[in-house]
């Protein structure tokens, strides 16, 4: 087990760098996974409103107080130029003028004579204020017509309009039978980016060190059987890759907020298969003996490129048909399709899920065969020695 032990020693010397990569990726990926959730909090955004009460009656003052509850009142002089400036520079959203005679006309039909305003045309603040004032006046009139006096009608109107409507956005399949949380989905989607990058950054340099030309020369001269050497190298790589995979899976428990259960295990299996694919890609890269710069560049191109093309960063549904048709030639596409099915974004079909996983395995097999072919072409002359 000399080769395996040395693999571990070389790994030990690069362990800190490997953990650093994992940490950096986790720091980037987990918040992004969490931020990708579609759960939203809705809150009222207060408008900056200037109220000019030309009526100055108890009714008009109550309206001003009502407006002030949910908005910010701005104190300004009733000067046309100044108000237009303030609206232009967005220091003000709306300027309301409560016309003289407001209290007398409140119970009459129409609202045109009640209010005047300065505002930016077609802005959301105009819509909001028009609706709010209409609602207010309509409610007061409704309560009044039902027999209440004006003070009581205003009080009931304020009570009724002060009720907040609680808004919940229902997400299809959220934590339900058919799907997983969006955080879970996002984490396992980002997993594909993390694992391929970390594996290329950690496995490749170690394999390249172990198979450096002069070291390889010395090893080939020795009495160790090439198969024994390869098996030990493979064992070392497996331990490293499994270690990285386990770290990310355990981290996923914390990131997604609970231990895996049910169909979530299929996502774990899918991530394991994709880890094998990533390892085979990493081994294929090492067979070209790339320099450190080329290796970094390759990791970036593969990690980011596949993530953009295959629906990691941008949902598959938003990709154009031409991009989607290209991405089908990349393993990350099938990994994301599996995740989509497991997480409920696609109709779950165990047969199709298995076939998508098999397609990923096929990528791993193709990469492994290519690696062996390249290595045979580059280094396999020793077996051809004339008998």
């Amino acid at each position: 087990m000399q080769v395996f032990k040395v693999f571990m020693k070389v790994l030990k010397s690069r362990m800190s760098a490997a953990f650093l990569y994992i940490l950096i990726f986790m720091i980037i990926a987990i918040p992004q996974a969490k931020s990708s959730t579609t759960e939203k909090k809705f809150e009222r955004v207060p408008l900056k409103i200037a109220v000019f009460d030309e009526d100055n009656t108890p009714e008009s003052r109550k309206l001003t107080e009502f407006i002030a509850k949910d908005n910010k009142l701005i104190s300004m002089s009733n000067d046309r130029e100044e108000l237009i400036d303030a609206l232009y520079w967005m220091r003000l959203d709306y300027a309301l003028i409560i016309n003289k005679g407001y209290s007398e006309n409140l119970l009459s039909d129409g609202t045109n004579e009640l209010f005047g305003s300065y505002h930016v045309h077609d802005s959301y603040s105009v819509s909001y204020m028009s609706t709010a004032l209409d609602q207010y006046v309509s409610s007061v009139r409704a309560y009044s017509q039902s027999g209440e006096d004006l003070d009581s009608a205003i009080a009931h109107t304020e009570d009724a309009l002060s009720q907040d409507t609680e808004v919940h956005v229902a997400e299809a399949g959220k934590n339900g039978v058919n799907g997983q949380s969006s955080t879970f989905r996002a984490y396992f989607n980002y997993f594909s980016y993390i694992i391929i990058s970390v594996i290329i950054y950690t496995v490749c340099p170690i394999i390249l060190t172990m198979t450096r030309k002069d070291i390889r020369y010395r090893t080939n001269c020795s009495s160790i059987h090439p198969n024994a050497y390869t098996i030990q190298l493979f064992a070392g790589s497996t331990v490293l890759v499994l270690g990285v995979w386990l770290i990310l899976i355990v981290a996923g428990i914390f990131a997604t907020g609970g231990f895996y259960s049910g169909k979530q295990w299929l996502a774990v299996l899918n991530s394991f298969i994709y880890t094998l694919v990533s390892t085979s890609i990493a081994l294929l890269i090492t067979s070209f003996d790339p320099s450190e710069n080329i290796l970094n560049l390759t990791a970036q191109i593969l990690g980011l490129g596949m993530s953009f093309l295959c629906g990691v960063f941008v949902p598959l549904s938003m990709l154009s048909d031409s991009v989607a048709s290209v991405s089908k030639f990349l393993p990350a596409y099938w990994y994301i399709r599996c995740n989509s099915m497991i997480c409920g974004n696609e109709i779950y079909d165990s047969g199709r899920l298995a076939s998508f996983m098999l397609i990923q395995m096929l990528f791993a097999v193709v990469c492994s065969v290519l690696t062996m072919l390249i290595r045979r072409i580059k280094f396999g002359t020793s077996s051809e020695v004339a008998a």
Partner: protein
Amino acid sequence: MENTVVKIENLVKRYGELIALDHLSLEIKEGEIFGLLGPNGSGKTTTINCLLSLLAYDKGSIEIFGEKMSPVNYNVKQNIGIIMQNVAVFDELTVQENIDYFCGLYIHSKADRKQYVDEAIKFVGLEDFRKFYPKKLSGGLLRRLNIACGIAHKPKLIILDEPTVAVDPQSRNKILEGIQELNRQGTTVIYTTHYMEEVEQICTRIAIMDKGRKIAEGTKDELKRMIRNTETISIELLDLSDRVKDKFAALPHVCSCDYDGTKLIIGFSGGKHNLMRVTELLREEELHSGRIYSERPTLNDVFLEITGKALRDKED
């Protein structure tokens, strides 16, 4: 009778149209330090690679320790140590770990390996650097580590492929002394180089190669006897008439006489007291000379006479 350790017969290696090894035959006996001497591209490294089954060859046969050499002949490989021109060690392992790793490719018993590693460290004098990483070692110490990695498993045959390229003279002497010490302990050594001085210093038998062919083989004295010139006398002279030059050329055993305006170079083919005759003639002609020195032919002269070109370029 000494046992044959390596037997190469009619080895042919082609790279397309280029013939790298042209019916090469060599026989290396047990206990020898066998020098493979030749300029760059003469086929030395190709020979070694074929010998180690790292390279396929087109024709011929190779036997080591009486067994046919092949990539899967691990019994033979077990008894071969290789030391290359480049330092082939792991930067991530200490001196001791490096030697232990390469020794472990041959020796599986941990106890034996520990002893072998200790002995190798002692042999190359790296006792104080056991825990050092290669990056902390000087160039000379790195070379010693490289040698220790190649010899730790106590091979019966050690192949050194230009181990002293780009090494300072002091480290070079240490390496050469080490090789001689290994040989004294019973190891057969194959030493490839294009430095003729090294070959003359340590090799018991030498094969000179050029263009994939063995052009001469023997001990250094045997090789030098192959050429006409046995002694070269050089005299620093600022003025020499044709008449006097002809007198020098007419001395007994003179085979060549050249004057370039500052130095007279006279080649002798055999004969004794050549230097005495030259100095007597200088006195007779009342010539005032600078330095006078006599040189025995070198392997470069041998190579020069056989191939018509110098063994290595001046920049080497």
